[in-house]
């Protein structure tokens, strides 16, 4: 960052200002690192009693019993991964569609308002999504999606297992759909910026060769932004992993391993949000902090994988 310092027009003054500027920038950067390190360390210390007491069982057991103080996080961990990945799978094609439409196909008059609308979605607080999900989306989903699917599933088929559950809209799939709506604006906005980085010469050359818009997008633009789109995916995944309030309202909050798409489940973030305020026992608090640590590790792993993928693609 220090390379951005102004050229030395008046050397006498800058010889004082420059070192100060460097120091400030250095401290700003280290402060951030120190804060990050502090979070990791305090989560580790707070969660240590739980990790120490339950060991590997903390990750494999689905028992979450505040009365006997036995905690296993398999349910929330699996729930977090399933909802985030499902949300990503739903959201990614739509985000690409939105971005391509806005940059390529949309009439100029519409492009501005549409882009604004997408970005407005990102400004809605997550609690509002949660309440909308609970009072509006869940009943609609139960009546018009869940019930028909459950009733049309042939007895004994895999669909019957997949669609089993209580038809009230509080389940893994509706949580994933709410999540996908929440991460969509971020992904679409970044994807649109990415598509704009495609050099106009490339596009125009492709059109000049007689490509249709589909072919231009498919063979020129998407390959060009392939590297950056990994970042888009990870951005969406990172946000989905940590999303709390909206999920808490519609996921049904059961600590067991989910058995179907329409089963209730829980995520790490929803479990912490639910139980932290009233957790009086030492081990209960520790188990929740340990959950926080696990979430941190998962998020970190996602970022690390993204970096690796990016590095791999750079060499191609």
């Amino acid at each position, binding site marked *: 960052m220090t390379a951005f310092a102004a050229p030395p027009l008046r050397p006498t003054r800058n010889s004082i200002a420059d070192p100060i500027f460097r120091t400030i920038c250095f401290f700003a950067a280290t402060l951030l690192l120190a804060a990050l390190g502090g979070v990791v360390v305090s989560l580790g210390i707070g969660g240590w009693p739980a990790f120490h007491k339950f060991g590997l069982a903390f990750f494999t057991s689905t028992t979450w019993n505040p009365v006997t103080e036995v905690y296993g996080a398999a349910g929330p961990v699996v729930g977090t991964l399933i909802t985030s990945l499902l949300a990503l799978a739903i959201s990614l094609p739509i985000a690409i569609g939105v971005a391509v439409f806005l940059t390529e196909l949309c009439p100029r008059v519409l492009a501005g308002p549409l882009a604004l609308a997408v970005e407005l979605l990102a400004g809605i607080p997550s609690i509002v999504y949660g309440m909308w999900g*609970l009072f509006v989306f*869940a009943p609609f989903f139960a009546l018009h999606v869940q019930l028909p699917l459950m009733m049309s599933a042939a007895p004994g088929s895999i669909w019957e297992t997949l669609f089993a559950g209580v038809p*009230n809209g509080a389940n893994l799939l509706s949580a994933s759909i709410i999540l996908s709506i929440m991460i969509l604006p971020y992904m679409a906005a970044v994807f649109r910026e990415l598509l704009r980085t495609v050099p106009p010469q490339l596009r125009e050359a492709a059109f000049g060769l007689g490509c249709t818009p589909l072919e231009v997008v498919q063979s020129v633009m998407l390959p060009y932004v392939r590297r950056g789109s990994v970042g888009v995916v990870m951005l969406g995944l990172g946000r989905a992993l940590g999303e709390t309030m909206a999920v808490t309202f519609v996921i049904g909050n059961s600590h067991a391993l989910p058995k179907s798409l329409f089963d209730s489940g829980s995520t790490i973030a929803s479990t912490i949000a639910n139980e932290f*305020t*009233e957790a009086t026992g030492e081990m209960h608090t520790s188990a929740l902090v340990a959950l926080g640590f696990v979430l941190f590790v998962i998020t970190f792993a996602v970022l690390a994988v993204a970096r690796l993928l990016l590095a791999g693609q750079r060499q191609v």
Partner: protein
Amino acid sequence: MLKTIAAAVGAVMVMGATAQAADLSGAGATFPAPVYAKWAEAYRAQTGVGLNYQAIGSGGGIKQIKARTVDFGASDKPLKLEELNGAGLFQFPTVMGGVVPVMNLPGIKPGQIHLTGGVLASIYLGNIKKWNDPQIAALNRGVALPNLPITVVHRSDGSGTTFLFASYLSMKSPAWAGRVGASDSVEWPTGLGGKGNDGVAAFVKQTIGSIGYVEYAYAKQNHATYALVQNKAGQFPAPEAANFAAAAAGANWAKAPGNYLLLLDQPGPQAWPITGATFILVYKNQANAAAGEGVLKFFDWAYKGGDNMALGLDYVPLPAPVKALIRKQWVSQVTAGGKPVYVSR
């Protein structure tokens, strides 16, 4: 690109109310927060003394008073005498509430279904699976019970309401006590969890054949289809303010060490069986006499003139004899430098 991301990050964390220039500070349970706020407003108008109450949850309230960062803590769950003595704390009740089972059954009117604690426990254990089960039918002769599966709804967040409900089921059902037990959150054998009273009520409303439990004020304001639960006297009282008060009046506060009293399954023909009070925690030995006196003066004032404000918010005030007993305990138990900080007037 960074700009877009920055612009898009719009999540807003709603923090608790920031501290004004307040003379008294307290923290804890969320359940009584509305009535404490109402009292504080009226008290400030009368006396000029403000109260800064942070509704951070009972667990947080207990931690904060133990860390001596507040003048008083508040908890929906009373502490046992050993824990109080260990920390040098004294606790007293302020207002009461009750837990009411609510249902979604087509064609059934509020109060039409009668249940016992044992049957309620079997439902929540997942042993009774249908509404026309013989055990429910035996309590409801003449009621056309539908052949519907029962969907159990419970709180997902840790809550004093859950503590009361699970404690009651533990009292009435050895199977529940052995398998689940009682706490702010428990390992539910079946069913789905809604966040807060709203969450439970919404799931019950959306699921035909469901049963849930909510705070009395919530059941009342939403005109929910409630079930009647048999009390110790064998009666089925309605969930009404007078019947919660009856539970508190019938309870033997004088013989409850450290005021540890759950008001569950109390004697008296009118007593609603799942009733509970919410509690205040203060130090027995006050380091700061003025702050200690301020807290007790505030609650003395609330005992005297706060009943109507509490009733207006659908809380149940304590019966007069209980208040008189608590005032005596203030004099005998809460001191600063060996002298009582509260002088009864």
